């Protein structure tokens, strides 16, 4: 059961990574520890859409508070905060 859940969450996370890769028009995978904001992978429009994708794929509702940016600044942070 746990393995199945992991598999589902891994797939959702991969979907998120693929979506961002497509949006950022990158050929190679995005390194998990890359700071998405500092490296300009998302602008304000794409960032909001990215958060929407995250909500949908992780089945959560995000709140804009002081912790949000810390939780989503990299794919690794997203994985740790929303997909484990």
């Amino acid at each position: 059961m746990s393995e199945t859940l992991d598999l589902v969450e891994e797939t959702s996370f991969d979907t998120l990574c693929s979506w961002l890769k497509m949006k950022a028009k990158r050929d190679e995978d995005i390194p998990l520890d890359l700071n998405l904001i500092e490296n300009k992978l998302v602008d304000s429009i794409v960032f909001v859409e990215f958060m929407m994708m995250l909500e949908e794929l992780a089945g959560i509702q995000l709140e804009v508070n002081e912790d949000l940016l810390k939780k989503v600044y990299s794919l690794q942070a997203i994985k740790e905060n929303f997909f484990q």
Partner: protein
Amino acid sequence: MSATYGNLIEFINQPNFEDNDAIFLTGATGFLGGHFLFWKLQTPGKVYVLVRASDADNARQRIRDNLEVCARSYNLPMLADSVLNERLICVIGELKSSKLGISEEQIAELAQAGIREVWHSAASLSFRWEDKDKIDATNLLGVENLLELASMCDIPRIVYVSTAYTAGRKKGNISEDYHAEDTEFANYYEASKCAAEKLVANYISEHGMKSTIVRPSIIVGPESTQCSGGTRFGLYGFCQEMYQMRDTLSQVKKTLRLVGDRDCLGNFIPVDHVVYDMLYLKKIGFGDQTIYHATNPNNIKILDVMKQCEKHNGIDCIDIVPVRDGKVSSFENLFDSKTKFYEGYYGTQKLFERSLPPHKKISLSDIDNYVRLFVEELEAEKQGTIFDRTQVTSWDNQNITVNVIGDPAKTPIVIANAYGMPVDFVTPLARRLSHNHFVITWDTRWVPALTQAFELDKCNSLTHAKDLIAILDHFDLPKASIVGWSSGAQVCLRTMQEFSERIEACVLLNGGVSLKNDSDIPMTIFEENLRSLLPKISSNRRMAEFYCQLIYGNQNANESDENAISSILTSTDPYLLYMTSMPFRTTESLFRYANMMNNLFHEPEDAYTTGVQTRTLVFGCDQDEVTHPLLAKALKQKLANAELVIEENAGHFAQFYDEKVAKMVSDFVNAKQHLTTQQVEAECL
């Protein structure tokens, strides 16, 4: 020398010139050239004026219109017809053509006219390095053509109006000499003017002619009235950019840093002082040197001037720094892109030498008044001196806010603004068109004003098309021509399909419509992102709230969060910020805007082009950051009776910045053979 150096009223009443004197002038429809002509015509002698026009009447009217603007700026009456008839001779031609496009017969006439000088005041004011070819065509090739004509007509002297900023990035004392070959420039306008100075020098030495170069600093309006006098260049251009961005800039919590020298001094000279210098030089036979700075004896700290611009625009966020530490914010990128031209004013410290007698000093408080009056001028334009605002009851009893300008007896034009955009975006176009037309535009219902309840079931282009027809009914207009900008183009197409009998002609400016069955039309990144995001926001009001909280709702964010948010903004396209600053500002306006745009994205595959027979002009720009220029080509193909103009080196806001777009629209509506905006380009100093 007159008793008071700089007093033009005294000057024109003195016997300084003779009746048999004649000059040839370019740039007379521009700012400095126009003011020079206004005063020169009040002294004896004929003035042959090069003017681009379709015929003699049009040429004379263009000159008259500009002279009236000049006269008003001094609170003086327009020159009498008798003066114009006696002294003003219009020569139709254009700088970029060989021999200025003037016929052999006219050249022979000029050669017999006893012209003593060519006064060259016309120039392209474009400044981007990427526009080099376009600028060269006017500022270098144009000078060559003019010199060739002067030589053919045995005109002994050329007076070239340059700029003090041909000094480029040079620091310190700037002498009245030619600049070194290795001079670096802040923009290509400066470079082209500097190259033209040398071009003139080389030509006259080869052809045994004489030359005088006048280099004005930053020209402001007349000293006596301190109004703008009709220009939007220099100080006014900078202040206007700030004015247009002030709502956006007021959202910025962090300092907006311009790179330059905080202690930089600017030199501001009233236009009538420059005209005086020019006429004085003529009176004294041009003296014993070639180059003269037309500058003021007082220099003013540019940062202080910027602070005054901020004060009168109600903002306080700008600073000048030697270098930007950390990331460059998106607002800084945006402001840079809008104000790059002015970098030459604050980039390096310059002190201009001047050999002509000194003018009265212009003080910081004078400049403060100039700026205050200019912002009032802009405000008056916005508040209703430009538009009369009225409420029109539309087809479903909703009140629509309608803005009109111009004489109701003239040919009507209705402008469909882009969805949700403030009227400011079409104000310059409306003002320019109002000279020849009765111009009507309206605020799209729901956004930008939020006073009406949002009705999702009516959220489609037909609602706006019916609003347009209701406006025609209100003004008892059986027919009108229509102009649509950006998404407003879809409203025009829908109106033409549903109410063809009410539409005379149509112009689509950088139309943002959905031709979905044509997969060959690429999308700009801007459009791609909007088409991806807005449907999601339209279906979920919380997402609109999420966006606004994230971008604008960070009032209590700590420093690290603020940096992160700033980083997000940094990566945002500056044009996107400009375009979206109004409808993206609140949750409600964003939600409404997202629905309006989402429904636009889902209009039928043909975007209501099928069956439209109305005469239509499709205008696209090759540098459009919002709607792809190939969309304009596709639109033209879909429409049965359409013409296409693709403008080079222009973007989505061409109708806002480029006055030639208004002429193109007017000519098309009046069924004249229209010129491309490049053909009608006549930017003048």
